[in-house]
């Protein structure tokens, strides 16, 4: 797994990726509620009540996006929240949502 280089994404694209699946939503909530969490993918899966198989591809998506970052600790690969990148991405999402008309909005 690696953090790939990619052209800057729009707020709408970032949002689609962040909310791309229920598991990804669970991961976002887990890391936002526990921003200091550092754990293996197995450990993260256990914390959200899922199997590693169910979680691994979703973690990969969030690593690609940059919300999560990866590091080697001895024999283990661990993931943690990239706070600065997370703030930057959510700012883009917020800016995008400001322009979207909600149903019923005047």
């Amino acid at each position, binding site marked *: 797994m690696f953090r790939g280089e990619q052209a800057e994404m729009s707020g709408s694209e970032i949002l689609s990726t962040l909310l791309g699946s229920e598991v990804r939503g669970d991961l976002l909530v887990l890391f936002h509620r526990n921003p200091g969490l550092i754990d293996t993918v197995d450990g993260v899966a256990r914390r959200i009540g899922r199997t590693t198989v169910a979680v691994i591809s979703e973690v990969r998506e969030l690593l690609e996006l940059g919300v999560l970052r990866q590091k080697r600790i001895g024999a283990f690969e661990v993931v943690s929240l990239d706070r600065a990148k997370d703030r930057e991405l*959510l700012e883009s999402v*917020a800016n995008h949502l400001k322009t979207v008309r909600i149903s*019923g909005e005047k």
Partner: protein
Amino acid sequence: MRVRDSSWTSPRGNVESVPRPLSSDQRFAAENAFSSVLVSTVREAVGDALGRNVLEILTSKGLLDASNDSKEFDSKLQSLFGNGAAVLERIVVKDLNRKLGIPYDSEASFDYEKSLETAKEVCFVESRLK
């Protein structure tokens, strides 16, 4: 008129004694209690998923005001998030169920409106049993 059995199975899966009917004051209080729990749950869920800035923007667009009307809330979420609306709704229901002690099955088909109805029923039963 509702036909009562000697016992019933609650949404939590427990067999409980028949709850007594609520007076109008009790019903009003139970509605308010559920509404309060729901709004705070929606606030926490959206805030924890997408951050406080996004939550503030959505609040200004009236999303939290729509929390108590599941259809209107769903419609607003769809217009903002498209397919992502279902992900947010699941987060809300998971948190709400956890607060009310209701099991959540991520494999089961998901209906936001029905999930809220179930949660509301549990809240009302809690009020009746007090």
